[in-house]
């Protein structure tokens, strides 16, 4: 199992304490390929692509509009 984790340095949490998942490009249980964008995360009007760190079956842990910070695990790949 591989975690889909928001990179620790994606944004400066001193300036922007938290963001939110803005979209999932794949549904729970779908197959994704390493490197393809699986989700987008938005913090202070800036949107970040979250690529799949491995290939596998997606399991979503954080729903759209829920709050996240750098380091949050938003899903896993089996």
């Amino acid at each position, binding site marked *: 199992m591989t975690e889909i984790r928001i990179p620790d340095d994606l944004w400066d949490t001193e300036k922007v304490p938290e963001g939110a998942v803005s*979209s999932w490009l794949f549904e729970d249980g779908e197959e994704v390929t390493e490197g393809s964008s699986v989700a987008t995360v938005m913090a202070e009007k800036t949107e970040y692509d979250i690529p799949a760190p491995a290939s596998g079956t997606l399991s979503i842990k954080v729903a759209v509009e829920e709050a996240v910070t750098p380091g949050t695990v938003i899903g896993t790949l089996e």
Partner: protein
Amino acid sequence: MSQRRMTMAKAMVEGIAQEMREDPNVFVMGEDVGPYGGIFDSTQGLLDEFGPERIRDTPISETAFIGAGVGAAMAGSRPIVELMFVDFFGVCMDAIYNLMAKNTYFSGGRSKVPMVLMTATGGGYGDAGQHSQCLHATFAHLPGMKVVHPSTAYDAKGMMIQAIRDDNPVVYMFHKGLQGLGWMWNVKGATTHVPEESYTVPFGEVAVRREGSDVTIVGLGLMVHRALEAAETLAQEGIEAEVVDLRTLVPLDREGVRKSVEKTGRLVVADEDYSSYGMTAEIITSVVEAGVSLTSPPRRVAYPDIPIPFTPPMEKFALPDGEKIAEAARKTMAGAATEGAGARAGAGT
């Protein structure tokens, strides 16, 4: 097979970038297309790759920069000019419909105007009457320009490349709710698989998004997705709706619509643009003129002939949605004519 899934905004940008790499004559200009990346993300990241000579921010004068786009196109460039909201066409319509749309004709074909006018349409997010209109029928009514409006990311890229390569002016309209923007509501079905390589989607061909035998629902852009929602509801009631995506208004695939209605015998047209004198009337007329035998009176679900309200409950009341489309289909199945038709000023079902 795993997919390469993208939002419509990213697919449009990829189409523009691939054409810009192939053809040095392609450039982009408009308000906030540079560092901001387009307020609806239609030019996100292009400035970094192509620089300020080819991704040009303009002053807030649509008359000037759309006029400049027409001149550049006639002089051999292939400009993509963004009109930030279609609602702003009022100040620059002379450049659009008297210059862009007519100069090929006026020059006896000696000057081409290979220009793309890209513009955002639609409401549903409380932006009121000067930032929420669709207006595609206004452009489609005036001769001399193609009018296209994708409903999926796949089409958004292919139609953008097709538009850039077209020697005629193309008005490329996109609905804000389909772009996949982080800050507003989204329609999931618009985010689709997008091949990495360059490809085109031809103009003038409808796409049947769902097959059905009982009633044809015709839509464009966001309304295709609302029609698909209606079709899901109707299926639970035993009504099988066929959903036809027009994709382009000019050229218009009248035959594609006719074929579907010949099969189902019933027609509902869904449109977020204003009701009277609009797209819904054109589609229904095309079918009736072709002599297609209808089992019941056709119906339209469109925006009422009123300025778009700001307040969310009022806007929601006026906006066509899946439930209003489903209700129109039920009435069509029951053979009912539109109440007050012939004397009506508004729309609805």
